[in-house]
């Protein structure tokens, strides 16, 4: 494998966003994943989302652990810094990076192995801290990069390529996030760009920790019959409960919705997510109800997708810390040192 820079050719006809940038400007290096890998579709959705948001590329910080999924941060927005860290420990890198500079967009890309096994502790604690970031799990039920072992998200009875069935119960990141206090909890599918792109935008704009568990089939090790993470199985057992549309600030909600079906949620920058409830009984602002709904559906082998839960009011990491407005990595030395006079005062106690 090698790192291949994609040639950047700007076709005059390509659509441009508010910054005058084309989708091409949000691309990264050439993917070295298997052809048809779900992860590549997620990469495309991230590129689309960043382009639609008119994000300045250098405003994006891309963090990841280790795995096929974690490699993808090299395949989008090459104008933003990337950090491919160690297996399962991206959340702590994110903690430090966000502590240092609260004014950038942070996207963490992880796998089901990276998040739910080796990194489960860090994942849980990043959520507790309500770090202001978007956390994507590219969930394929296996360890892709180490060639197809079951991961902790493998469903009971799901079969490995060689026929062996998984007997241990899965860890569902969405259920986990609901119990651990996640403030933006979503599930999607790599094959559903229409659902995924607005979720990514909303997740980046959410003030706090936004989790999107994206089912993302591994064509090489987990796309066969008997797998519950294959393209076919996911498509057949996929139920969207709440569709999220992203409405930028100062844009009207134009489409018509039946009363009770649409629910606008204001984000802190003035934009909104408009939730279209496909099941009118569902309430995406009620943690307990959301949890029960998901549990019931899972028992029937149905993957509930969409924006499952949202809470825009909880304090995020820096709110809880009471951090100053200027990112701490930009404070001047004068603001940080009490100087020799200060030292004299401090040391009075030690005489």
């Amino acid at each position, binding site marked *: *494998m*090698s*790192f291949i820079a994609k040639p950047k050719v700007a076709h005059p006809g390509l659509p441009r966003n508010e910054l005058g940038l084309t989708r091409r400007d949000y691309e990264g290096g050439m993917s070295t994943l298997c052809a048809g890998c779900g992860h590549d579709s997620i990469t495309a959705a991230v590129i689309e989302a960043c382009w639609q948001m008119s994000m*300045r590329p*250098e*405003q994006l*910080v891309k*963090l990841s652990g280790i795995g096929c999924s974690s490699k993808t*941060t*090299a395949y989008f927005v*090459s*104008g*933003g*810094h*990337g*950090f*491919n*860290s*160690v297996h399962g*420990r991206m*959340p*702590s*890198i*994110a*903690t*430090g*990076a*966000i*502590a*240092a*500079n609260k004014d*950038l967009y942070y996207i963490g890309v992880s796998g089901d192995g990276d998040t739910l096994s080796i990194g489960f*502790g*860090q994942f*849980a*604690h990043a959520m507790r*801290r309500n770090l202001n970031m978007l956390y994507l799990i590219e969930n394929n039920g296996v360890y892709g990069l180490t060639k197809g072992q079951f991961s902790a998200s493998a469903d009971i009875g799901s079969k490995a390529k060689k026929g062996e069935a998984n007997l241990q119960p899965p860890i569902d990141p969405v259920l986990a996030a609901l119990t651990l206090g996640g403030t933006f909890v979503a599930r999607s599918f790599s094959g559903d760009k229409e659902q995924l792109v607005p979720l990514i935008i909303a997740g980046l704009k959410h003030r706090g920790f936004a989790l999107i568990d994206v089912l993302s089939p591994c064509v090489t090790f987990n796309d066969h019959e008997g797998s519950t993470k294959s393209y076919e199985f996911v498509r057949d057992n996929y139920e969207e409960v709440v569709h999220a549309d992203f409405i930028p600030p100062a844009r009207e909600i134009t489409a018509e919705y039946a009363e009770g079906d649409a629910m606008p949620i204001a984000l802190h920058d003035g934009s909104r997510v408009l939730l279209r409830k496909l099941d009118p009984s569902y309430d995406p602002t009620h943690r307990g109800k959301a949890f029960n709904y998901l549990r019931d559906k899972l028992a029937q082998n149905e993957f509930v997708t969409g924006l499952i839960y949202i809470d825009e009011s909880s304090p995020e990491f*820096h709110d809880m*810390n*009471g*951090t*100053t*407005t200027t990112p*701490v*990595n*930009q*404070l001047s*030395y004068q*603001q*940080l*040192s*009490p*100087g*020799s006079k*200060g*030292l004299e005062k*401090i*040391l009075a106690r*030690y*005489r």
Partner: protein
Amino acid sequence: MQHAPASNSASTDTPDRLNDFVIKLANVNGTGSASANTLLMKSIFRMGIPVMGKNYFPSNIQGLPTWYEIRISRDGYVARSGRIDFMVAMNAETYAKDVREVSPGGYLLYDSTWPRPALLKRDDITIFGVPLARICNETFQGVRARILLKNIVYAGVLGALLDIELDVMRTLLGESYANKKSLLDSNLKALELGYNYAKERFACPLPLKVRRMDKTADHIMIDGNTAAALGCMYAGATVGAWYPITPSTSLMDAFKGFCQKWRIDPETGKRNYVIVQCEDELAAIGAVIGAAWNGARSFTPTSGPGISLMNEFIGLAYYAEVPAVIFDIQRVGPSTGMPTRTQQCDLMLAAYASHGDTRHVLLFPNSPEECFYMAAQSFDLAERLQTPVFVLSDLDIGMNDWMCPTLKWDDEYRPDRGKVLSAEQLEQIEKFYRYLDKDGDAIPYRTLPGTHPKGAYFTRGSGHTQYGGYTEDSTEYQIVLDRLKRKFETAKTLVPKAVIDSRGSTSLAIVSLGSCDGAVREALDLLRHRGVQIDYMRVRAFPFGQEVEDFLAAHSQIFIVEQNRDAQLRALLTLETAVEKSKLHSILHYSGLPISSTAIVAGVLASAPEQRLAVGV
């Protein structure tokens, strides 16, 4: 005190033990003895007499034995001397052992409210019984108050016996309870009860006593963790991440305390710092690396078990060239070991932490004073060299109160943030490559997220080229790995130099590091007093500079003094310098208690060839 004068015997006009003895206080932990013991030590310090306090405490919250040792040394020696002149035996459980420990001719004070068995008496020491509990029960209300004030009563007794100035003790209590009038009153009362009890019944003062000197002016008493925390604040550290572990916890506690006072935005009341108490050390080091990568000065305090957990990330920071400052306050290993006892047992662990070919910059402070300056310097080194830097302190330095020269800060200081390209610089260059050695010092340029689209690069722990791209090509990989080795050569020129005390000996020398220093200096005085010509080098950093090579080459028999079983400093010297291994003899101390000068003297005398030691031995 760092530089003890060479005089080591009492001059003829001073009574023998004046300002030169050791008090040991045997207490039960959780009974509030710390404040009384600090009061005694500080009073002597305020009287201008050099003093050192060492706390031997259990890994427990309440009910186990704890000892506090106060060395009063008119000559300024800070190490354990190996003798106990006055024992305050407050713990019935350890009484038998405590009685045995007193040096012949010494003294012992115990609570005579309840009789102690006669068989534990000794004829060669003087024993004072004071009914401390009874005095408190008769005077004070409440169980807790009575237990706490018992300690102040014995402080009063000692005040009278040792001739500690009562006014100084009163003033110190006044400072401690400035805003708590009722507490102050009861403490003053307890102090006087003890003082008067002794005055009335015993021949005060004893020959063992203190008298005002002028040797502590412009000095402070501070522990190494507090001093290191101050150093972090003065270095401009803004992100601290940690997971609690003895003996490092007080470093972050102190940093937090300083930040709450000095790092609050005056207009908004908001914090100019972020402290993250992480879920474990795996996360703490991750947060430090993430923050440093993103341009904040960040650090983590920990101890051996934490370093073990951090290993994988440390290798990433080394290879991806991310600054990080790690304080390892060493404690006794292996495994959980003895968490509240001291050792210098993490040298090898830290020097080569993580898998693959890795080597790290280590600093070895010898005192709280150096903890302060080296803490600040560690950030400059980490950012200049773009690599993890370890400050290897230990429990003895970190948690004990040491007398040291007042810390000074140069207002001209500006952090050395290293080679970080600004937006303007990026605007001007054609293309930025992360790992190119442009200046020939093996240190590349880096950029921070958010600065400029041209500055973006991909940080990875996997194989990378000097341009920053992914690689599995042998040559490309080796170019970067070889440069990292050269970068370590650059580090040699930047780290603090060894401190050398040379008397021109070409044969004998001692090499040591960190908290051994006080004991080594005292041992040098004792040895030189006996006519042994011996030089001394205290290494202050790894990698070792040229001066270390030169010193090793210039001596034929070298004693390496260190506090671990496996002679880790000796191992590091043999691996990383050209020294001939057979020249290096170990003097090892790893009991968990700080090393004493007597152990070093004995070690040198035992193994140095006799012809060289003929003089005076």
